[in-house]
């Protein structure tokens, strides 16, 4: 065959993303995590019962937290393995040897994973809200918005883990990913710490805090439970913030991956 017409970048990214998504949602881990989530959600009612108060609020908090915690753990685990397992298992040999640029491969893999994570988050949110509705808790639109922002947090964490994998070993990347998650939430409270710091401490702390994504932007679930509204402008700003971080982290990954020996 002589010199075939090559597909465009968008097509290649879409094709890689499609196969990654299919591979992700068919894995037994995916279904297993949904079952674990459903069991945890079922058990969360027990905490509501022992709370001596409005158990519905307590259960709603737990359901929203479970969705985020399981989502982040899955994002860190799969983000870490996304490209590294392809290298270890040599599954990418038959892909990279084809007319696809490495950046297209990384972007396609990330988008496929993001689609899988989105489906998982949507499924968890649906299970959680259905359970809340069945147990008499109020299900309102702000919970949907909180679920959306939790998804953005999960996608940012997948990008963080992907980036760390490009820079280090998978195990270290998982540890660094979780550390970034911790720091990303801790920096939300940093302004309250500022008055404890002076001089160079303040400069170093503010500098380091600026290097990690402020994940507090996506923890709207804490307000959504009480039906505190979130304006469109605020929502757009948070979504834009997450998208920028994802773009930056995936770009960093591409830069490192382009130079990697496979």
């Amino acid at each position, binding site marked *: 065959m002589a010199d075939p017409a090559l597909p465009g970048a968008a097509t290649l990214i879409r094709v890689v993303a499609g196969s990654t998504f299919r591979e992700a949602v068919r894995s037994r881990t995916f279904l297993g995590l949904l079952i674990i989530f459903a069991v945890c959600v079922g058990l969360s009612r027990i905490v509501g019962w022992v709370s001596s108060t409005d158990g519905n609020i307590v259960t709603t908090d737990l359901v929203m937290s479970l969705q985020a915690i399981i989502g982040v753990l899955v994002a860190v685990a799969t983000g870490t393995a996304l490209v590294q397992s392809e290298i270890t298992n040599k599954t990418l*040999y038959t892909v990279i040897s084809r007319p696809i640029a490495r950046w297209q491969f990384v972007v396609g893999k990330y988008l496929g994973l993001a689609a899988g994570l989105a489906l998982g988050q949507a499924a968890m949110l649906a299970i959680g809200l259905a359970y809340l509705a069945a147990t008499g808790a109020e299900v309102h639109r702000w919970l949907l918005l909180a679920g959306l922002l939790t998804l953005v947090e999960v996608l940012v964490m997948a990008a963080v883990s992907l980036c760390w994998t490009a820079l280090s070993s998978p195990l270290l990347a998982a540890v660094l990913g979780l550390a970034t998650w911790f720091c990303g939430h801790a920096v939300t409270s940093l302004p309250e710490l500022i008055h404890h710091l002076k001089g160079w401490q303040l400069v170093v702390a503010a500098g380091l805090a600026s290097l990690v994504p402020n994940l507090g932007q996506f923890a709207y679930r804490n307000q959504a439970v009480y039906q505190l509204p979130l304006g469109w402008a605020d929502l757009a700003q948070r979504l834009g913030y997450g998208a920028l971080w994802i773009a930056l982290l995936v770009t960093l990954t591409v830069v490192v991956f382009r130079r990697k*020996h496979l």
Partner: protein
Amino acid sequence: MDAVITFQGVSFTYRGNWLQRISALKRVDLDVPAGSAFGFLGANGAGKSTSIKLLTGLLHGHCGRVALFGSELAGSDADRRLRARLGYLPEHPFFYDNLRVDEYLAYLARLSGLSAGGITAACERVYQLLDLGDLRRRMLRSFSKGMRQRFGLAQAIIHQPDLLVLDEPFSGLDPLWRARFREVMALERGRGATLFFSSHILSDVEDLCDRYAVIDHGSVLEQGRIADLLGQAPMILTGSGPAPAGAADAGGGEWRLPFPEGEREARLAALPPGARILRLERQKVALEDWFVARIRATHGAGVKLGDMSHG
């Protein structure tokens, strides 16, 4: 004949721990002519896989010139057009567990630039060639090693590439499938594709290839035509009746006498009366034996098949 693969003074060094550097290729020169079947021979760690990875874009950052179809690989997006004409079967191939055969082939074919309509036809072709039709709905996680190898060859040829790079293609195959693989490769070659493959099973190289190269410790020791290599084997004169001096008993009343060039007339003159000449032929020597002797030799002069004592 134009070269499909060209290595000119190619060196490559891996990064080891910290400042450690591992030299994998040292000024390698190699030419693979278009339409040939090229056997790339070498022991483990000799540099075969590194060479193949440089060809397929899995490695870059080399010194020297690596060219495909006459165009130099620059490590840029421009290489994509060259790689579209290449099919690659890695050694011990692994694939995604949770994709079906038909999905996986369609995925890789699409990456190689086949259209939706072309993919269906291409898939049917490889299903037939490699008996994958009944397995098309199976997930790859359920495949045995041999089945994976079949799928590996299918994905390598699905877009009918001009160059097939095969790394140990016969690994894990039973004799029936080894024969089928040879047929498929012959078909691909008949279509006009160039075959470039490494193998530890040198009889396969002997059967399939018309050219060869030997690499050891990152350097190409020699390369050339298989026919020329086999042409170096000594001539043997087989006869019956009274045996001349120096002949060996071949059983059944026959004897065999080495018949080197330059001594032929003297040997013929020395035949005893009544001796009958039955045939003159080249001695059969296994490529394996030659290869082992060649690698064991120093990097100096090559080992000639005629230097070997095997009968």
